[in-house]
């Protein structure tokens, strides 16, 4: 017998994947992000069409994702804000519903290892959201080409691919968080609420708190020295980076806007003699490498805690 086949992870993966696809929840999320994605690209496209004809059209295609057209926020800020919701809604009841339905005992009585269950569920969740994000990215890109009539350059394509991968990592992180919550809380509703609370805290309140703490440590007013203002900025930025949303924002701004050369505060002296220009892809990547690693690490830590917790958990 094929050892991998007998593990049952393939069967579990397929079943979970099919469950997601079939669920009404998935249809709702898909509808939501497709509407948001298309409308934000559409309105951004209109703005760019006018801009491109006047100015230089370097990286016009990338600007499609980052510019906000008219009253709608840009595509990336939509994804940055709503991405967590996608991850949370896919996972908040993934383990506790199995227990609530009484299927967990039956499932684990089959000749599979216990970690197969959590691995299969996690991989299926990541699979489904990758599918969602990749198709959305391609669809939106296609619409963009039609809208502005400028095909993307090779570098633009690479940058968009990295953007898609980053988005998958970002949403997987939130999926891992919700997986953990679905183990910690036996009630699906509690788990969903905890997830939403954390999401709101990290995407809205961390920024406020970071400002408060930074101002408390290094109060900035008219008389304060340059060093204090600099420290204030640094503390604020580091605290902000606790939030995955902030990390993601910084990373995609850098990757989608080659003009971004640095993410922290800069001295005027450092800018002296600098020639304004764009960064090559490899340099942009270098700038956000820590962000990527941190997001992957956060995902892994959440999954590892869930894994250990699930392995030690009593079945009833």
């Amino acid at each position: 017998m094929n050892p991998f086949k007998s593990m049952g992870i393939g069967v579990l993966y397929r079943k979970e994947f099919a469950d997601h696809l079939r669920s009404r929840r998935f249809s709702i999320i898909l509808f939501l992000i497709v509407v948001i994605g298309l409308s934000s690209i559409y309105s951004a496209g209109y703005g760019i069409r006018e801009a491109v004809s006047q100015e230089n059209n370097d990286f016009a295609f990338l600007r499609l994702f980052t510019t906000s057209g008219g009253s709608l926020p840009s595509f990336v800020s939509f994804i940055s804000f709503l991405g967590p919701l996608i991850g949370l809604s896919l996972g908040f009841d993934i383990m506790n519903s199995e227990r609530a339905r009484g299927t967990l005992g039956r499932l684990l009585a089959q000749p599979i290892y216990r970690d197969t269950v959590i691995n299969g569920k996690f991989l299926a969740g990541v699979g489904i959201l990758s599918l969602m994000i990749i198709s959305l990215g391609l669809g939106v890109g296609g619409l963009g080409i039609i809208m502005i009539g400028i095909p993307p350059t090779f570098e633009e394509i690479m940058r968009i691919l990295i953007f898609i991968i980053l988005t998958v990592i970002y949403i997987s992180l939130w999926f891992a968080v919700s997986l953990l919550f679905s183990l910690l809380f036996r009630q699906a509703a509690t788990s969903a609420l905890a997830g939403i609370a954390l999401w709101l805290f990290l995407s809205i309140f961390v920024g406020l708190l970071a400002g408060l703490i930074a101002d408390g440590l290094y109060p900035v007013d008219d008389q304060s020295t340059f060093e204090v203002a600099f420290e204030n900025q640094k503390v604020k930025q580091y605290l902000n980076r606790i939030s995955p949303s902030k990390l993601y924002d910084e990373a995609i701004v850098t990757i989608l806007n080659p003009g971004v050369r640095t993410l922290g505060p800069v001295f005027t002296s450092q800018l002296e003699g600098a020639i304004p220009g764009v960064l090559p892809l490899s340099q942009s990547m270098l700038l956000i490498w820590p962000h990527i690693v941190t997001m992957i690490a956060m995902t892994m830590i959440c999954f590892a805690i869930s894994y250990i917790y699930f392995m030690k958990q009593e079945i009833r």
Partner: protein
Amino acid sequence: MTDKKIIIDTENLTKKYDDFTAVDKLNLKIEEGEIFGLLGPNGAGKTTTILMLLGLTEPTEGRALIDGHNSTMEPIAVKRIVGYLPDNVGFYDDLTGRENLRYIAGLNSIPRTQAEKRIDLLLERVGLFHVGDKKVGTYSRGMRQRLGIADMLIKDPKVVILDEPTLGLDPEGIEEMLQLITELSKKDGRTVLISSHLLYQVQRICDRVGIFVKGRLLAAGPIESLGEKVFKEKTHILEVKAYPDNEDFMKLIGSINEVEKIDRQQDMFIIQSRLDIRKKLVTFMGERDFTLLHLKQRGRDLDDIYRKYFKEKEVV
């Protein structure tokens, strides 16, 4: 009976939760092909025992062997030959009965065509063939329980373990369920372990029962011999009701040598004696024209035995 192979064997199996002992040095031997009833009140540790047998919970001490495989060290080998019906068995409500079974067949690495054949046979056997393609959400409790039997048999197990299989069923459902369980042993030659607190329902179909109270196996054996175990040191107690119910009847009882004590309880006499006096009593009554209205030996049926053990345990 003794030359039969022992298929479930526990050696000093113990499970402690902090300072609470759920299962205390359990030594259980179950022979191949028999129906063994593990009977005891709620919270006696029956489910914990079953989970340890399946390797889903780790014993604090001792070990469990199923067909020579250690449940803790080789859970996969054990789960391959053991079918388990948990109490309150759950299914995926939005899948059909057939899909639910197909999933479990997949996890057991049963080839597709073989699985389909087996699913048909099993659905037929548990009387669900006509609703096999309906969603499980529409099933009644009795149907779910029978689907649970089919689910358990998918892997063609040597040993089946059923946890409270008759709980919450109507009388007809209980009848069907017990019939199915009996067939598992008598027709298929599987070893059956049933846990239940519903003595009357389950005792009928068991070859042997074990009385399990507060984590301890108080007695095990065929129901009749369990009765004798109680009787060995205790006196016989009879309930008698007769017509006419007068002083003469009292004297008649008193005239039997073995009688030690006579009590009156409403319209009944409670007679304590050293030996079984039923035959003598009935003969005497016949000779003197008394009509026997009620005669029952106390402590002979399982309920009395059970209550007896339970009471003794309470005192300790």
